[in-house]
């Protein structure tokens, strides 16, 4: 009984970030990387993974130190923790692929100010145990990665006819240059939000008769 009670929220901690409370599509957090670096699928995916990494590690450390951090300076401490992990990620990407590091540019360092990470530290990790904080970070990070990958895939497909650099559409396809420009980010985000809100509205509408019956 006791185990079951603990299991249910644990699974939920992980799953809520993927869809129901997706950081991008539902909470609209961290819009700066969402709009700026998703001009190709690989950029979106690697930015998502970098954020996932920082999010899980900072959630872990914040949760471990939650009783040691004085309430008055908690934001500064969180930022310090996040910034340390971002530095790690920055050097890691530089070591793995200098080309990727160049195409993501300043946005790797800007993970520090991604409000999603600070938001999870403040709202979740500093109030819950380590295991739940890790699951929350993992779920939110995966949800963020999923959203960035969606954005990047749509924009790359329409903007250059490729997916992860591989030509998918026939050679005769006319690329929509605007989709890889900043404006395309806004168009894609708006269209995806429209689609998701539409799907959720339909689900809510179909859920009502079931409850009544």
């Amino acid at each position, binding site marked *: 009984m006791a185990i079951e009670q603990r299991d249910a929220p644990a699974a939920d901690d992980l799953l809520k970030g993927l869809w129901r409370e997706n950081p991008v599509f539902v909470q609209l957090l961290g819009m700066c990387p969402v709009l700026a670096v998703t001009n190709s699928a690989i950029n979106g995916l690697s930015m998502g993974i970098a954020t996932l990494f920082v999010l899980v590690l900072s959630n872990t450390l914040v949760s471990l130190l939650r009783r040691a951090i004085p309430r008055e300076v908690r934001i500064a401490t969180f930022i310090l923790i996040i910034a340390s992990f971002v530095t790690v990620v920055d050097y890691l990407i530089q070591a793995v692929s200098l080309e990727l590091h160049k195409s993501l540019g300043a946005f790797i360092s800007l993970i520090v100010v991604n409000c999603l990470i600070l938001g999870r530290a403040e709202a979740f990790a500093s109030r819950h145990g380590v295991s739940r904080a890790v699951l929350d970070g993992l779920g939110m990070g995966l949800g963020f990665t999923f959203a960035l990958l969606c954005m990047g895939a749509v924009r790359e497909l329409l903007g250059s006819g490729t997916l992860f650099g591989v030509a998918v559409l026939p050679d*005769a396809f*006319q690329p929509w240059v605007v989709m890889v*420009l900043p404006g395309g980010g806004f168009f894609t985000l708006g269209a995806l939000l429209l689609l998701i809100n539409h799907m959720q509205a339909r689900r809510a509408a179909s859920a009502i008769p079931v409850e009544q019956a």
Partner: protein
Amino acid sequence: MSAPGRTLAIETSPHLASGASVDTIMRNVVYALLPVTCWAVYLFGLSALLVLVTAVLSCVLTEHLLCRAAGRPTSVRDWSVVITGLLYGLTLPPALPLWMVATGGVIGVALGKSLFGGLGYNAFNPALVGRVFLQAAFPTAMTTWYPAQLSGRFTELPAAVLTFPFAKPDFDGVTAATPLAQMKFDQVATPAGELLLGTTAGSTGETGALLILAGGAWLVARNMMNWRIPAAIFATVAACSALLHWAYPAQYPGPVFMLFSGGLMLGAVFMATDMVASPITRRGVVLYGVLIGALVVVIRLWGGMPEGVMYAILLGNAASPHIDNLVRPRVFGTSRGRAQ
């Protein structure tokens, strides 16, 4: 109204209506656009006709379908979307692939008009929203021009027009440069006579300067267009370019060339005067025109592109609510210092 024994009817102003409704005015704008539309078809032939028809149909269909999707009665009958489509078609290159024409029409009406709530709520001119999207999405196709008065223009179509949807257009050899591009990149000025008649390369409907002016004058005479907007734009462009031409004659073109080339005539007369997206006060309208005129000169002379009327008008649209706020008339009875 107030017959004895009946309750006194109380209504708010305006008490006198001119009788002009939305669809009367809009229908008249269509009439004013007809001469320049016919001239465009004469100059560029069959492809211009197809582009114009596709533009109008795509805009009208989009409006109709979106109204139905939103569960509202269709607003196609007020003619405003026909004007949007016609104006949008007139701003396009005459041999643009028809699938691009339709794409821009859908985007212009959906994003530029319906998303804001339909006629009366659009912050930007929907026709220009469609065009600016195409310019950003397909820059090559949007800057490939065909010469006017080609000999076989009524019998054969440029291959690019009927490109299969979403495929790359294949432009054949007979492309030409617009007068503005010739000026910007080759320092060649087109004679004023050609500019007035519009026998130059350019967008389908932007070249016939005299016919556009005639259509505008007809609307002004019927009190259906605010003449202050084009007047302010023309005055600003003429003054700025005259000053620059006088100071550096070799570097900058004169006012006649600036006024009658490119999309300035069509933009100033029919697009900047969009009743919804322009300011409503008399002083505001003048400020709006000066802003657009100055932006046109700046973009044309110092920008990377040869033409900037489209961007100038869209920026003017964006500024117009703020202009209205800035020049808000003093409320009667309040002091001059604070208009609260």
